């Protein structure tokens, strides 16, 4: 139920309350055909009030259903039927009982939700801490190589041939490039550390972001051919452009580094209902079957192992992608294509109303 947006919440609660009260009424009406007594009526309505308190937000609907339940039972199901009679013995007691049940359950409910939130918060914190630990650990590897290689050149300036020096410097350059990518991912995480609400979304033309990401990627990996397909319609998507660029970059680099002999990548943008669909597919060897189900959290669950090596692990980049997409209320999927190669897709909600206006 956590997925219902705030604005819709009270409508949802209202409908639920009405439905449960209606069900209780129908049940009582049916039972009355079998049994003339009325002992079960109160019990059924207490049950209804309890159910409503459990599944709605806050105290309001529980109390509301308790009050209306009592009045309703009085009006319909107690003698004289279809008339109010407040002089029945035990009436105030029934009313109090229902009210108490509703408030207790609402209170419990609120507390459960609070604990749930706390648990998620702690979990998030733990994931972040693991991620940072893993990254710091792995940043050491390229740093060691950079320090070692440059020191070797400085100390052996005269004895090394220029060919040797060049090879060492190429390694240094490659390691530094890797560090840059890692830091970019770290920055993306810190950008989101304020929680989901903090993401600043602007309406962007999705094709521009795709275009910029691909051209940046092509500069780093000129050997790989990237084709882009965009629809005729302009898709406007509310997003933090820097973060979404990071997602597309990560997916492209993931294909280039872990895809296995990838020579071609296809980036495709399309509209699927009220979502924009971004897909990145390659012609590499695909994703190992056993990784497919845990691919987006693979990097994080592997963090505890000591032999965790991020250079060989595609998990971190993908976890960052997944986190970013989720923070945009989007979804992400990974699959292997029949033709071989992997395909990653992510969906972001389109700006409501605007896209249809633009078409005309």
């Amino acid at each position, binding site marked *: 139920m956590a997925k219902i947006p705030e604005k819709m919440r009270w409508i949802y609660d209202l409908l639920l309350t009405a439905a449960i009260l209606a069900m209780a009424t129908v049940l009582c009406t049916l039972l009355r055909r079998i049994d003339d007594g009325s002992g079960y009526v109160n019990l059924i309505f207490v049950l209804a009030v309890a159910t409503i308190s459990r599944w709605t937000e806050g105290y309001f609907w529980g109390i509301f259903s308790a009050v209306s339940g009592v009045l309703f039972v009085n009006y319909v199901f107690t003698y004289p039927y279809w008339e109010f009679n407040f002089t029945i013995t035990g009436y105030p007691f029934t009313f109090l009982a229902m009210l108490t049940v509703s408030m207790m359950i609402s209170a419990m409910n609120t507390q459960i939700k609070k604990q749930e939130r706390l648990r998620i918060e702690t979990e998030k914190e733990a994931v972040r801490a693991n991620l940072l630990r893993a990254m710091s650990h792995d940043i050491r590897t390229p740093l060691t190589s950079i320090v070692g290689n440059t020191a070797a050149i400085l100390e052996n300036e005269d004895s090394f041939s220029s060919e040797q020096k060049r090879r060492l410097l190429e390694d240094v350059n490659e390691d530094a490039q890797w560090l*840059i990518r890692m830091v*970019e991912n770290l*920055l993306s995480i810190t*950008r989101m550390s304020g929680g989901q609400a903090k993401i600043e979304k*602007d*309406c*962007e*033309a999705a*094709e*521009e*972001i*795709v*275009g*910029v990401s*691909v*051209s940046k990627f092509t500069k780093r990996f000129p050997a790989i051919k990237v084709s*882009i*397909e*965009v629809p*005729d319609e*302009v898709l*406007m998507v509310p997003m933090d*452009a*820097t973060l979404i*660029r990071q997602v597309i970059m990560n997916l492209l680099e993931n294909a280039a580094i872990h895809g296995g002999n990838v020579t071609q990548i296809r*980036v495709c*943008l399309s509209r699927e209902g009220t979502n924009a669909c971004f897909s990145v597919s390659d012609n590499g060897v695909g994703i190992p079957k056993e990784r497919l189900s845990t691919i987006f959290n693979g990097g994080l669950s592997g963090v505890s192992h000591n032999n965790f090596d991020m250079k060989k692990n595609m998990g971190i980049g993908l976890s960052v992608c997944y986190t970013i997409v989720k923070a945009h209320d989007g979804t992400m999927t990974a699959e292997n294509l029949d033709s071989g190669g992997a395909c990653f897709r992510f969906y972001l909600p389109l700006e409501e109303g*605007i896209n249809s206006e*633009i078409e005309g």
Partner: protein
Amino acid sequence: MKLKDKVLVVEDEQNISNFISTVLTANDFDVLVAQTGAEAVSMITSHCPDLIILDLGLPDMDGINILKEVRSWSSLPIIVVSARTHEHDKVMALDLGADDYIEKPFGTSELLARIRTAIRHTRTPLDNNEIAQSGKFTVKNLTIDYDKHHVLIGDQDVHLTLNEFKIVALLGKYAGKVLTYDYLIKQIWGPKAKADNQILRVNMANIRRKIEKNPASPEYIFTEIGVGYRMLENDA
């Protein structure tokens, strides 16, 4: 002997200023280095450099203040160096008159290209000398005819709407330079226009559908995420 262009590098990190000055010296520039804002201000007035490379994060003052001060009396080209986390700084710097920006970390070829473009721009009397001479701007297959108000790809008119033409014309006039979203919106829709990027994005998407082979891998007009657009420059 050829007269060398003088570049002032304002950067507090010595490693970075060392690397920049090494590269620039090797590429035939005279290099001056200032490590603080105060030093920079005094060196600008005493040495009159041809170009300034300005890091916005300085220990003693905000780089933006140096930019403002220099712009109050001179139009000498300034390239701002920014870190990725400060996107608003970048836009602010451009709106305050910086000629270009470069993001850390940057490569040497990128830096040299930006410097050459910025210096060339100040050497041409109008913003784009090509337009001043012929009323036309041409780059690759694209021609903007400022007299007849149309844009050609090859010799085909691509039929832009009035606003679309205004956008392309403006980008062409300052080809090679980033124009911020805000600047473009104010120029096209007037100073009272809302700073709403959406209409600009949609116009740009339509322009690209008319002038580019693939709107998502543009050849002529490039997107600078979070900042603005830049027209391909017709460099020799």
